[in-house]
């Protein structure tokens, strides 16, 4: 397909990987915009955040998401049956993290905090919700790669593993920033 290509093949020399990197760059702008708004309203929301967020519990769930980056790296290293198992472990960890987020939402909603209640509800649910949607998309992509690789007998291009892995690391990295901003920010 690629008849001729200038330059030497490298990490960025593969079109799927480069496209994913560029996509991630644009996604970063998306999250930075929402985080900027969160920070702009920080003074107005800090009191509610301190009174209602369960930092320790969310930290434990966050550890699961962070460790899923490691299992993802293991999966991407060996595309095949072995890697597939690691993919499923990654997806499992991501799913448990999402479950933690859902339980946090349920607790807050029960306490009367919702997107319409005040600026904290508005910014908290938006920022963590948008991240959650990205985790969900990542889960679907991981399961898709695992399923296709299983059905087609490992005929999935390594670049697909590579791209999904990049995306997952990105989702993970965003959570580092979001967790720091929203949860650890309550200590400052």
């Amino acid at each position: 397909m690629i008849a001729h290509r200038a330059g030497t093949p490298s990490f960025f020399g593969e079109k799927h990987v480069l496209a994913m990197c560029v996509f991630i760059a644009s996604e970063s702008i998306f999250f930075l915009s929402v985080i900027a708004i969160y920070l702009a309203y920080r003074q107005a929301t800090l009191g509610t955040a301190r009174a209602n967020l369960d930092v320790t519990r969310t930290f434990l769930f966050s550890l699961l998401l962070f460790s899923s980056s490691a299992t993802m790296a293991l999966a991407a290293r060996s595309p095949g049956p072995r890697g597939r198992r690691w993919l499923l472990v990654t997806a499992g960890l991501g799913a448990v993290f999402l479950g933690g987020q859902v339980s946090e939402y349920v607790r807050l909603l029960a306490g009367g905090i919702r997107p319409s209640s005040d600026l904290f509800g508005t910014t908290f649910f938006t920022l963590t919700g948008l991240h959650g949607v990205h985790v969900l998309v990542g889960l679907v992509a991981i399961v898709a790669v695992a399923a296709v690789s299983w059905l087609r007998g490992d005929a999935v291009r390594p670049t697909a593993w590579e791209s999904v892995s990049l995306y997952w690391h990105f989702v993970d990295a965003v959570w580092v920033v979001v967790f720091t901003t929203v949860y650890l920010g309550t200590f400052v």
Partner: protein
Amino acid sequence: MTTAEVAAVPRQQAGDRYALWLRTVDHKDVGILYLLTGVAFFVIGGLEALVLRLQLAAPRQGVVDPHLYDQLFTMHGTTMVFLVMVPLLIGFANYLVPLMIGASDVAFPRLNALSFWLTLFGGLLLYFSFVAGGAPDAGWFSYAPLAERAGSATSGVDYYILGLGVAGAGTIIGAINLLVTIALLRCPGMTFGRLPLFVWMVLVTSVLILGAYPAFSAALVMLFLDRHLGAHFFDGAGGDPLLWQHVFWFFGHPEVYIMALPAFGIISEVVPVFSGKRIFGYRFMAGSAVAIAFLSFSVWAHHMFAVGLSTAENIFFAVSSMLIAVPTGVKIFNWLATMWGGRIRFTVAMLFAVGFIAMFLIGGLTGVTLAVVPIDWQVTDSYYVVAHLHYVLFGGTMFALFAGAYYWWPKMTGRFLSERLGRAHFWGTFIGFNLTFLPMHWLGVQGMPRRVYTYPAGVGWEGSNLAATIGALVLGLATLVFLFNAARSLRGAPSAPADPWDAWTLEWATTSPPPTHNFEAAPAVRSARPLWDRKHPDLPDR
């Protein structure tokens, strides 16, 4: 179905042909789909503008009711920005970039088709609002809290959010595709120092899209949550309406250059060819675009000098906005230097290119006056701004698009446009444009605010408004001449050779129109003007 199969199917039945357009993933077909979409929306957006001008031809008219007027000016601006200029420029980029860099297609042909269909679907979604209770009515930049549910009760703004969100996703995907294409699919010898300037501009534009559009998507999500979940991002009761403006213009000003840079690229292809001279200061042309791109992310609050920012903020954004005039000036001077000492053929494409230089110059200079904070305090949100932005976007971008249309028409269709009708189109457009928008500067200085559906008599605005309306009608007629010219040409027999203009870039090295895979033999280049080298073996470019 692959593009090869598409081309192999005999194109006899009309139904089959339409199905081919629906299925195609060939970058040239997708490019033409973008261009057709842009032209269709240009006609719609132009008709909307004509209604606005008829309403304003004289004081206290009742051509349309006030609420419809608000919908029409909102849709006019939104259409022209998101559904005309961006699709037209991406259409040219789609068609030309692979040809110019000697590739057989873009990096992701199917994703490319998806980009187009998302753009078209976004546009249709936006227009569906008219039959779903009312079009958006809060202006193309949808300032909150007017764009909140309390300020705009119909579902129009929701269609604005959804339509532009979908079209924007298509634009982001398209930018990724173009960027990867330019990065990885250049033919042997096509270094970054030899890229045609149009490709350079598309590259920089892609980066701008990727930096700016996601911020807009985020703003749209937040506005949607305000409207539907009762969130308080921009509502003025807790939330700060100015944050919407900050995020919107963080996107909105780069968006201006997303519309301008590819236009610069077109001019940088047309002017050298018809001057018979290579572009003057190639590196400075490419470098100035990079400078503009960087600066364009730091000028957004010059749209907000009147909102009550601090003096320090005002001065910062004044300085950054003034600075952006420098690389823009560099471009204009280099075009002049390219023409100087040349042998200028005044084809219609060249007429539009020269018209572009003069009109864009006016838009640029009034832009500098708007960067001067106290002057901005007087004329912002007045018709002066309407004049300024149309000199940039119509006198600038649209003139460049017309130059590109006349220049690449033979390549895309294998036919010529009539130069005689083209000259009528040019002069009609040039005169109509200036008659419409030059008096608007004066209207703004006299105190006429923008976005008013009518105005009182006896305050001295009648003459200029009437002139503007007459000018708009002239513009409309000139556009009809263009459409007629295009239709007539398409009915004629193919007559265009591979290289009708004695041009130099790779798209002219293949037939008109090019075959599915663009080039019979994979090209290799040794300079920015491969065809020049071929025609002048004694005097090749370095």
